């Protein structure tokens, strides 16, 4: 609908942005706006100050760190992920998943930082980044810190980024022979997820599985991961490993399905994601 009164500022540097976020209570970072503007239209949230990150070129870079991590600036858009040769080479699943987020217009504006900082349980990137063992760099007024995905996602719409801080980049280990998978059920093609799972199988056979939509934050399917540690990633073994996964969850019920349906979908998605990852793994 229509926003409440708000103040807007567009800083020129990251330092300025952090300073502004710290100076005004009720200040929020405005990235792509594909969620925040809607939230403000509905008046479900009404920050007093919007700090627009649009001019912060530093946050739009995609590159590699000294130790080969794929570094994605917080303001990198989904479209940029999709078109990035660095991403294609290092961790193509990011582009593959990003290409299914909503539509062209949203992908032209929506950002990686926005997707993770909104921390909507149905968002695409949180479970994917958890499975990929990504890390998140947060800049504060005095210092910068890097946290794991576990530490980053704190609750529904809540992350480790506190008032006066800014997520600056997400770092993802390169594939190095690992295979990645992502599966789930959406409401219509390229719609919101009802349940999803992300999985990676390393070239040594190590498995990481993260589930979205079933809890406040993305969760690891640890028991399933352990059962697959033996290295047998056949369809039967993966299906067997998923048994009981649903029972261990307490997902929400809504118009798109009951808790039971989501329990079932979590298992199905986990199996599909692992099988997809296994099939893409490069032989050791």
């Amino acid at each position, binding site marked *: *609908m*229509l*926003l*409440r*009164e708000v103040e807007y500022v567009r800083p020129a540097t990251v330092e300025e942005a952090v300073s502004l976020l710290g100076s005004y209570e009720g200040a929020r970072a405005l990235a792509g706006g594909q969620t925040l503007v809607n939230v403000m239209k*509905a*008046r479900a949230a009404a920050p007093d100050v919007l700090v627009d990150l649009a001019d912060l070129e530093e946050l739009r870079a995609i590159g590699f760190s000294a130790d080969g991590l794929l570094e994605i600036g917080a303001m990198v858009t989904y479209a940029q992920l999709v078109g990035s040769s660095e991403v294609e080479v290092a961790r193509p699943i990011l582009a593959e998943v990003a290409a299914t987020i909503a*539509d062209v217009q949203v992908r032209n504006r929506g950002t990686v930082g926005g997707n993770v900082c909104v921390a909507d349980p149905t968002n695409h990137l949180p479970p994917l980044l958890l499975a990929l063992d990504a890390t998140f760099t947060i800049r504060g007024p005095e210092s910068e810190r890097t946290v794991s995905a576990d530490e980053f996602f704190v609750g529904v719409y809540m992350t480790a980024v506190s008032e006066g801080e800014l997520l600056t980049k997400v770092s993802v280990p390169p594939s190095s022979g690992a295979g990645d998978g992502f599966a789930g*059920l959406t*409401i*219509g*093609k*390229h*719609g*919101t997820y*009802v349940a999803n799972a992300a999985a990676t199988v390393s070239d040594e056979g190590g498995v990481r599985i993260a589930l979205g939509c079933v809890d406040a934050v993305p969760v690891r399917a640890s028991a399933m991961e352990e059962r697959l540690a033996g290295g047998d990633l056949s369809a039967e073994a993966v299906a067997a490993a998923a048994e009981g996964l649903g029972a261990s969850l307490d997902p929400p019920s*809504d*118009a*798109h*399905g*009951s808790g039971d*349906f989501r329990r*079932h*979908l979590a298992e*199905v998605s986990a199996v599909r994601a692992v099988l997809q990852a296994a099939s893409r793994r490069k032989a050791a």
Partner: protein
Amino acid sequence: MTTVTDQPAKTLEKGFVGQSIPRKEDARLVQGLGTFFDDVRRHGMGYVHFVRSPYAHAKIVSIDVSRALELDGVYGTITGDEVAISTDPFFEMSVEPGGLIKDYALAVGRVRHMGEPVAAVCAATRELARDAAELVEVSYDPLPVLVEAEESLKDEVVLHDDAGSNVVWSGVFEWGDVDQALAEADHVVKIDRLHFNRFSSTPLECAGALVEYDRGTHEWTLHCNHQMPGVGAIWMAPALRVGIDKLRFVTQDIGGAFGNKICLHPQYVVLCLLARKLGRPVQWTEWRTDQHTANAHGNERTFLDAEVAVKADGEMTGFKVRALDDCGAFPRYEPLGCIIWAQVTPGMYGWRNIKVDFTQVCTNKSPVSPNRGYSRMQHLWLTERIVDIVAAELGLDPVEVRKKNYVKTEQMPYETPNGCVYDSGDYAAALDLVLELVDHGSIEDRRREAAARGKLLGFGIGSTLDSGTNNFGQSTLLNPELQFSGNNEAASVKLDIFGEVVVTLGTVPQGQGHETTAAQVVADILGCSPDQVNVRRGHDTWFNSHAGFSGTYASQFAFTGLGAVKGAAELLRDEMVQLAAAVLQADAEAIELVDGMARIKDGPEEAALPFMALGAIVNANNAFLPPDFNPTLNHRYVCRPYFGMVDTEKKTGQLTLTYATQIHAAVVEVDPDTGEVEIVDYAAVDDCGVRINPQIVEGQVHGATAHAIGAALSEEFVYDEEGTLLTSNFYDYHVPHALDMPPLKTGAMESPSPVAPLGAKGMGEGGGGGIHCICAAIQDALAGAGKPIVSTSCNPPHRVWAMLRDPESSRAGVAVESK
């Protein structure tokens, strides 16, 4: 091409009619130069935002607007108390108890659905109106909430004290002798419960209006998108205590309506009151969330205790059922839904013994209003579900059951058990065509191939009728006191001083291409090109020719709208011919209109008058005309279809005039692990008689199919027990996007209507064929997994999965008693 044996089709010599000429409307629309009501501005206008109830059912304890009024830029407010003083309740169509309901433009004393408008604020900008609305303090005392029709029927909690019951209307429709048919049947198939889910067409442009009040003449002008202004005025004028002529409706371009823009009168009355009270134009644009929460939902109907009589050879001789219709918080137009389904009582089938025990109740949900396919779609879904369930339970081929039981083309025009007349059609041929389009012969191969990929393939047919051109006399079946009968539409066609042909329509187009098809009809009659025919955009009660039932609804434009255009154009033609004859000094029979000229047939070149000359003579140069000849070159025509009378005792009569056929077929693949349904092949065959513009007809078939696919797979208005609508935006209420649509194959047949002026039947609504065939296809796909019964119209993954997980539960309500 079928022929009608009874009467020759009344068609025109095909010239422009029958061609897919590109639309005249497009030039402005592709440039963003259309004028939709929100594009209209007035100096000093105020913007309105409605304060709406967050509760589904509550007493309004108090409303305090003082803080809102203090906000700078706020022009004023209005509440239910003021409305109750300055207006009378809207006219109710039903008999008691529903007829006793008091329905005002704003909630008075009580709110009965989430999102019901309680107050309105008007301010200088949209944003300020929104801000001010938040400052209106309303306190409520919540009341128990009714979201299930079956619960509502118990009358433990009554929504409208004036009515004393939640029942709006009830009646029993019975023709033939179904109990006898059941007794004589070889099989009786019983189906305990089928439920047609609540959804609507959600036109992309929301409702709204800009309303001006003239203090000198006490007239209101509503720049709006009401699709049936005649009916709007009938509701609004008495409520406002003014004559109908005090309301001028102006529509220009409308962004889709599909029936959802018929019941806009409550909000429009608020705007009228505000415009008068504040002395300035006021504007309101509905928000998407408000459209979903509080505007117009389509019929939600539960069919209970169905019993179907079937002979050993597969002939279905009759059925009986109890229908429970949930009209939401206020019935409004909706009691007509209790009757209108009877236009298609037997569906496409020849059974003669039918009993429907129909009850409509109120619940704490959004009011229902006509939605594409209005009430007939729900009933046709019932008949198609019956056919497929009978076929499945008796081990019969659904194609054969249909062919056996369809009304045959030789029987056309066919009188149904309740006196409606199916004018023309060849259902068997249409079915054959659709089967060919989806390569029905290969289904079993495809089923095996899909199974190898882990998918369950299913095939389904959905046959449906689009009944058009209503007899408003059917309303007397609802309420014998109602003074409505017949139908009409008006149009005027004139030849101006410079030879321009100008048409005004009584209809209110919302994308159906009326400007183009009207021009085609006129061009053929006047012997000119459609480019020379200017059809004025939209509807304006000051300038247009319109009649009491004017509007665009009920699949009738091709009959009544174009019938009026044809009539007016013929009157004009006849006069032009006479005038040319007088000027050229020839007999009228010797004159023809060709290429924009009136000329002597086979005469010399000079024996011709351009239209401009005719126009000039009448308007500016008429002295030489004989005194007894006074041409106006400006004609209005009212197309009045003829109907037999309605018998309110037997509940029989000609309730509608034309019946377009649509037969759809779908091939689906179900993912057994997720319940996801993918449509892998789809075809629709349409037979609407003569097609004035085949491309436009086909576009309507595409659109109706998309609406049906959405309704079948994802579109549902879902409520929780507190009466909160859970699907109030396009994230949760998922409509088909470009990637969701399967490739569509279409076929067409033309069985001209013997009763329509141009042999063309209305066809825009479609009848929900897609819903019927997708339900059938899903049931077929799951047949190997325990034979679950599809008993709801909308089957998103969670419902399909429930059927897969527990087919027995879904079958629990179905039983077969065989001799």
